[in-house]
């Protein structure tokens, strides 16, 4: 008996220590970024800032907010996320609602096309040529139109809508309701968990994407936060490497680039951090979509 109690306690202690470590390792990088964004740039270069800002300042945020380029990029990202999510949610629900109806003609063929396009694609270059030929390149629409239908979302939608009993819909049809009003008045109101998950994942995807802004647009007007962040990080690393090589000096520049980079990172994390505690449930539900997707 005694042996079991000690084993229990040892396991308990190990579990708590490991979990606490995992928690710290997961959170510290975010926390450190936040500290950097509130610390004086030059002071940060001296090193030794680990746990809290040593020379607290709001200058980085001021610099960020006064930089018209950053603010513009921020709003492009917002517009892209809002419009892209809206289009994806509407289009995906209509499409998967139709495919979820059991008496739909050619249903099998339609579903086959969805699944087939989930696993096979023409690859990068043909896709790029298609975007070019559709005159989507270097327009805002290249952000939102290509993501409107996602096979993984559609398959989840088919499963979800398929569980709604046909009899309810049929009685509405007899009353003369159109499919569109059945969808918006009956189906969607009872599908909130699915819609929330779909919208959340579409939004996160839009907010986080960077390759589209790097390669599908040329005008600075159309660049997103993610893209600007990527170029800034490249700059910081390059100038850090140069500073290392050249001795130290001229680090004033580096410090500000880095702290502004940290500030931009905090700003770009903000939307996700804000909704995260409230929408956690939907984040977890998305796992099932993600599990198939990865």
């Amino acid at each position: 008996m005694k042996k079991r109690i000690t084993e229990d306690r040892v396991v308990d202690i190990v579990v708590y220590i490991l979990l606490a470590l995992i928690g710290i390792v997961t959170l510290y990088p975010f926390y450190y970024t936040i500290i950097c964004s509130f610390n004086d740039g030059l002071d940060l270069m001296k090193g030794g800032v680990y746990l809290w800002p040593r020379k607290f300042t709001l200058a980085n945020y001021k610099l960020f907010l006064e930089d018209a380029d950053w603010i513009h990029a921020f709003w492009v990202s917002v517009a892209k996320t809002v419009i892209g999510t809206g289009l994806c949610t509407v289009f995906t629900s209509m499409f998967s609602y139709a495919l979820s109806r059991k008496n739909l003609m050619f249903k099998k063929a339609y579903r086959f096309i969805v699944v087939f396009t989930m696993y096979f694609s023409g690859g990068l270059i043909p896709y790029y040529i298609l975007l070019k030929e559709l005159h989507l390149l270097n327009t805002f629409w290249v952000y939102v139109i290509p993501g409107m239908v996602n096979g993984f979302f559609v398959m989840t939608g088919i499963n979800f809508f398929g569980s709604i009993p046909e009899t309810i819909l049929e009685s509405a049809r007899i009353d003369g309701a159109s499919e569109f009003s059945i969808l918006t008045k009956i189906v969607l109101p009872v599908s909130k968990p699915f819609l929330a998950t779909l919208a959340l994942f579409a939004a996160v995807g839009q907010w986080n994407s960077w390759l589209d802004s790097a390669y599908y647009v040329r005008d600075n007007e159309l660049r997103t936060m993610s893209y600007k962040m990527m170029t800034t990080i490249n700059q910081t690393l390059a100038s850090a490497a140069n500073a290392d090589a050249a001795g130290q000096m001229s680090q004033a520049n580096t410090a500000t680039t880095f702290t502004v980079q940290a500030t931009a990172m905090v700003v770009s994390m903000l939307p996700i951090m804000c909704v995260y505690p409230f929408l956690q449930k939907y984040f977890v539900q998305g796992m099932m979509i993600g599990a198939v997707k990865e």
Partner: protein
Amino acid sequence: MKKTRSLRKGFTKFKRQKELQIFALAGIGYLFIFSIIPMFGIILAFKSYKITTGIQGIFTSEWVGLQYFKEFFTDYRFGELLRNTVVLSTLKMIFAFPVPIILAILISECHSKVFKRTIQTVSYLPNFVSWVLVYGISSALLSQGSGVINQILTELGIVKTGIPFLTDPDYFWGTSVVLSIWKSSGWWAIIFLAAISGIDSTLYEAASIDGAGRLKRIWYITLPGIKGSIVTVLILSIGSFLGGGMVGSNFEQSFLMGNTVNNATSEIIQTYAFKMGMAQGRFSYATAVDLVQSMISIVLILISNKVAKKVSGEGLF
């Protein structure tokens, strides 16, 4: 006679559900344009194509057979690219795969509900930030001169000068695998935690009465209980093996964290194809290179589908 009647019947049925059919056909039309049409573009790999000739050029340009494939296979970088792609994926398979399982077991073994929930919530946060942000974080933490980890290591006297995690080719694979683990373990732990919560709790009670300690219960009840999920996730990751398997993101990492200094280990087939096409405008060659990886991936997906069918009776498609 019978045939025309059934045809007419089908047509009336189709007309009756024309609204639903419009919804469906809109989606199918969309997929046709954005997914099916590009598939025909694969023939670019066998042609000498110039982007200025547009879509027509795909059909009118000259056939060159396997010229671009030969060029890729005999390229002096071919061996290196293949090695980098396979090694990175294999390392992720070996090191990143077990972590979510261990994490899920740790979380399920924790008795404090509040602590448990907090750690779980925290653990999958990194999954929702972009790779650009992770790249930024890695620059803040790991850069040779000012990264906080290097600062701490030098302070503690473990190293004399910072470790070049981001610039030395020797460190690229390790850094990538660790960052993948950091980003996705919490997320994948969800699936294993769900499996653990599905295990019959009377099994644990019975084992405990029989005198099995905590470790024995983990080994003989928890692990066998989640074997099904482990196998499923493993099968799924076969199909995406070349992209990095379960944790994926080979392309994102190599693209963002690859630089001229660590290029020897960071360049993979996908980033090479991307650069050849987008930066150098060699569209046909890039399509051929991309196609080589796609062909391997298709074989892997088919294998994964077969295995899934055999193991669980249900395939991916």
